[in-house]
């Protein structure tokens, strides 16, 4: 019996942690203006739950129980920390605020959005924004985040600690930006979520569970953001983009674990349900009449997946979308994608001309997809020697063994005559 109660309590605590951690932490951090102190108080509350719940039963409202205990722990900790003259005044303020919140316990106000904006504040080091969101909103520990982002755990922990100290010391506010500043302020939030997704995406086979989960968690954050900011088209655009990409996950590797390029993927392996959800989000975003980078990238994905019905991607539409994206981002990576789309729509020579123009950007000299695209188009026009040279460079620049194998196969197949 005792063991069963223990298991129930542990299960309830884990469920609450999974579903409610971010909300509880956001609430406490917002009140205390201190993420670290809020984390400590909440950790103590969870520890207390594991002692109390097996004995006394799981409370009707576990979140409210945890919040009450966390508040008490926060006040105790504050009392221990502050011994100066201003301690009494500060403590009174905190106690009053926390007590006022307790009066309206039924619904814990959702400050997660304010917390996300604090974590992705322009005053926070861009590289630590995504990890900080994962830690505070999702409750990931530093070691898990470090392994997902391929950073040494000690270094990651130290950077997280520094970022949280900056939030407290510089008094970065926990608030949702006004409409007029939203465009500037939402960009780093979207970037952080997309960076999280990309980390998960770089392990398509899902062999490393942690990285695979990162893509899922990014989609979860994307859904949360879109639901909390229903009038932000780019939040929906990002969600659509991630859903489109996720829908093709299973088709990106064949049975042998080899890389399958988009053009050769079997549409039967794409996840219809995710594609439909992505189309819905994109449509909803486009109705708001404010185009942006993520909506455009999602639209490109949408033009690719029409292949499931028509048998071919809409390359002309893709080329046009990339043209708008270039105007918006001036990204050399986008320029390559546009060249590939133009090659499909208008022929390899037109694509190569655009690649030549893009090569003016010196950054592309060490960018694998540039050389792979070049090699492919050179092969199609029959310039085998130049194609072989470009493949060789692409292979040397690639870090993913599956993609390296794919490029080597293409390289080896060059001898066969190619016709545009």
């Amino acid at each position: 019996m005792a063991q069963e109660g223990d298991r129930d309590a542990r299960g309830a605590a884990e469920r609450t942690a999974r579903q409610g951690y971010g909300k509880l932490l956001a609430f406490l951090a917002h009140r205390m203006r201190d993420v670290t102190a809020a984390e400590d108080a909440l950790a103590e509350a969870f520890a207390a739950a594991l002692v109390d719940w097996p004995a006394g039963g799981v409370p009707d409202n576990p979140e409210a129980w945890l919040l009450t205990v966390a508040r008490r722990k926060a006040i105790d900790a504050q009392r221990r920390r502050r011994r100066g003259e201003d301690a009494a005044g500060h403590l009174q303020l905190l106690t009053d605020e926390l007590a006022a919140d307790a009066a309206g316990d039924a619904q814990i106000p959702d400050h997660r959005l304010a917390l996300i904006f604090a974590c992705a504040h322009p005053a926070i080091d861009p590289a630590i924004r995504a990890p900080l969101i994962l830690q505070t909103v999702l409750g990931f520990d530093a070691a898990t985040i470090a392994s997902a982002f391929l950073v040494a755990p000690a270094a990651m922990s130290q950077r997280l600690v520094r970022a949280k100290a900056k939030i407290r010391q510089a008094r970065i506010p926990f608030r949702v930006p006004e409409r007029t500043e939203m465009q500037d302020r939402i960009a780093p939030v979207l970037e952080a979520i997309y960076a999280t997704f990309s980390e998960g995406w770089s392990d398509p086979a899902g062999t490393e569970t942690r990285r695979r989960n990162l893509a899922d968690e990014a989609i979860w954050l994307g859904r949360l953001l879109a639901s909390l900011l229903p009038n932000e088209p780019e939040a929906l655009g990002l969600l659509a983009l991630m859903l489109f990409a996720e829908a093709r996950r299973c088709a990106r590797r064949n049975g042998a674990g080899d890389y399958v390029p988009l053009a050769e993927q079997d549409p039967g392996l794409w996840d219809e349900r995710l594609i439909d959800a992505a189309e819905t989000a994109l449509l909803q975003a486009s109705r708001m009449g404010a185009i942006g980078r993520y909506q455009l990238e999602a639209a490109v994905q949408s033009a690719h997946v029409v292949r499931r019905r028509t048998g071919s991607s809409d390359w002309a539409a893709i080329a046009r979308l990339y043209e708008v994206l270039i105007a918006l981002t001036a990204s050399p990576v986008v320029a390559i994608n546009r060249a590939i789309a133009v090659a499909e729509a208008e022929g390899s020579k037109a694509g190569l001309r655009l690649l030549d123009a893009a090569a003016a950007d010196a950054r592309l000299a060490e960018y694998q997809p540039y050389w792979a695209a070049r090699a492919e188009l050179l092969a199609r026009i029959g310039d085998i020697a130049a194609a072989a040279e470009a493949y060789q460079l692409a292979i040397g620049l690639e870090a993913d063994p599956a993609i390296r194998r794919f490029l080597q196969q293409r390289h080896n197949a060059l001898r066969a005559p190619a016709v545009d």
Partner: protein
Amino acid sequence: MKYMLLIYGNEGEWQALPKSETDQRMAAYRAYTDAMIAAGAMTAGDRLRHSDAATTVRVANGKTNVLNGPYAETREQLGGYYLIDVPDLDAALSWAARCPGASHGAVEVRPIWER
């Protein structure tokens, strides 16, 4: 919450400006200072003499070392500061962005150590 806005700029550039231009910049600073006072944000603020008037002091092993010149010889030098009292970093950053110095140099925003 108090913040210090540290204004960095290129002194040589300032000295090379025609008088009409320096007058215009000084007027912009006066307007900026007035606006901060009107908003109740201003605690203190001063313009500093150029860094060739600076002297740097270090004490090592009981020996005082006095050096002619600023702490660091950089192209952009500390030229003035404001001490402001505002609710949070966003408010401090928006004042920093309005500072005339932010458009020709840089303004560093530092929270004041409070107990």
